[in-house]
């Protein structure tokens, strides 16, 4: 065989054999169970930093192949009822061959950027979040790139819960021109938001008119029990003291930019 024909054929075989070798050494070990991407069990971490909720969902990538994964990036998108709440991407990182590497992608939920209704649900009611995990990586000397997507459900515990108040247990106190209604309340705050500021607001009135209001600023504790003072307008106080009637007490709590509001009716029996 002439050297020219030999060199061309040798080059063709060399390229083919290189590709076959790469496939056999890389793709086959991975396709036969050498690759797994899993969310680390029980390792989720939720913190509150600089006014935003930071969620870390560690992902373990196991590389059972013979080549390192290059520039592995994990992107997470958290959504509730189909609406995107937050998105975050981890820094690119290599996953060496024959090793399991843990990546810690984080996403932040900025209360200012979340729809108020949805934020209120997150803060006061809890939710079931769908966390879409997307892992991108290069492999086999950069000749293969892959993307893996899966949905990881995440139960979101309410940040503020068990808000309770009972107008029928409210006391009253003369204040000179009228009187104050002393409304006992209680609620709990998760560890995540303890130390954050909150505002509790209340109104008292009839079905058609507000007769008084009050508010108080709080620093959230694990358990928040207290009495909220609602000042009743002097003009309304006289009639209230004299005649029993049905009243509506509204209680609102502002926290992390979200608001929750409850109304309770009760029968005012007049001054004792």
């Amino acid at each position, binding site marked *: 065989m*002439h050297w*020219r*024909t030999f060199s*061309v*054929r040798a*080059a*063709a*075989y060399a*390229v*083919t054999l*290189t*590709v076959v070798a*790469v*496939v056999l050494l890389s*793709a*086959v070990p991975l*396709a*036969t*169970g050498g690759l797994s991407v899993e969310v680390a069990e029980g390792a989720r971490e939720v913190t509150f930093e600089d006014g935003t909720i930071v969620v870390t969902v560690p992902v373990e990538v196991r590389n059972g192949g013979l080549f390192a994964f290059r520039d592995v990036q994990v992107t997470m998108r958290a959504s509730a009822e189909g609406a995107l709440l937050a998105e975050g991407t981890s820094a690119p990182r290599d996953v060496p061959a024959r090793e399991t590497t843990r990546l810690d992608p984080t996403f932040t939920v900025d209360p200012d950027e979340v729809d108020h209704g949805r934020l209120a649900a997150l803060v006061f009611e809890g939710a079931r979040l769908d966390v879409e995990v997307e892992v991108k990586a290069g492999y*086999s000397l*950069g*000749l*293969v*790139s*892959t*993307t*893996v*997507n*899966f*949905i990881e459900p995440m139960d979101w515990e309410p940040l503020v819960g068990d808000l309770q108040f009972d107008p029928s247990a409210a006391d009253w106190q003369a204040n000179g021109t009228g009187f104050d209604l002393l409304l006992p309340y209680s609620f709990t705050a998760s560890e995540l938001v303890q130390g954050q500021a909150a505002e509790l607001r209340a109104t008292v009135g009839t079905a058609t008119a507000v007769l008084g209001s009050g508010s108080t600023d709080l620093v959230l504790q694990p358990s928040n029990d207290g009495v909220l003072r609602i000042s009743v307008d002097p003009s309304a106080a006289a009639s209230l003291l004299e005649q029993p009637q049905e009243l509506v007490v509204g209680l609102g709590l502002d926290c992390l930019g979200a608001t929750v509001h409850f109304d309770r009716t009760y029968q005012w029996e007049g001054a004792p």
Partner: protein
Amino acid sequence: MNEFALRHGRVGRGVLAAAGAAVKFIVLPLLLVLGTAVLLVEAVREEDIVLLGLDALVPTIVVLGTVIAGLSFFIGFYPRGSLSRLAFGLATAVAAGAWVWTVTRGGRLELTLDAVEASVDYSPLVLLLLAAVALGGLYYVVEARTYRAEWLAALPGADGEDGAATG
């Protein structure tokens, strides 16, 4: 002179070339597919193998491989330096390129296994394989140029001039 005349060829060499192509484009790929399927049976479920489309690869490999083996017969059949061998060599390279592109699905694989969606882009590998196929086609061009004069000189009654042979 008709360079495609059957009297220029040797059936034995054609059969050997066809057999070689059959091994390369049918037997070895089928063994690779079946071997991969066997390995996957231990790693994943049977329905996942169906999702990978390994079973659908078998008829593709057989049909296109048979076409390549048929064309390869004429590569071996005709002697080096002949235009007929060059023509079948280039046709085989084109068919091999189609084989590579079809069997590798263009270098992209989309999978959905349970709740996991995966896409694999191995188009650089496919391009390398197509480059190897192109080199295979180039080989017949280089071979024709290299052995042209030699073949013409070996023709009975020929004076070895290229113009006489191709005219």
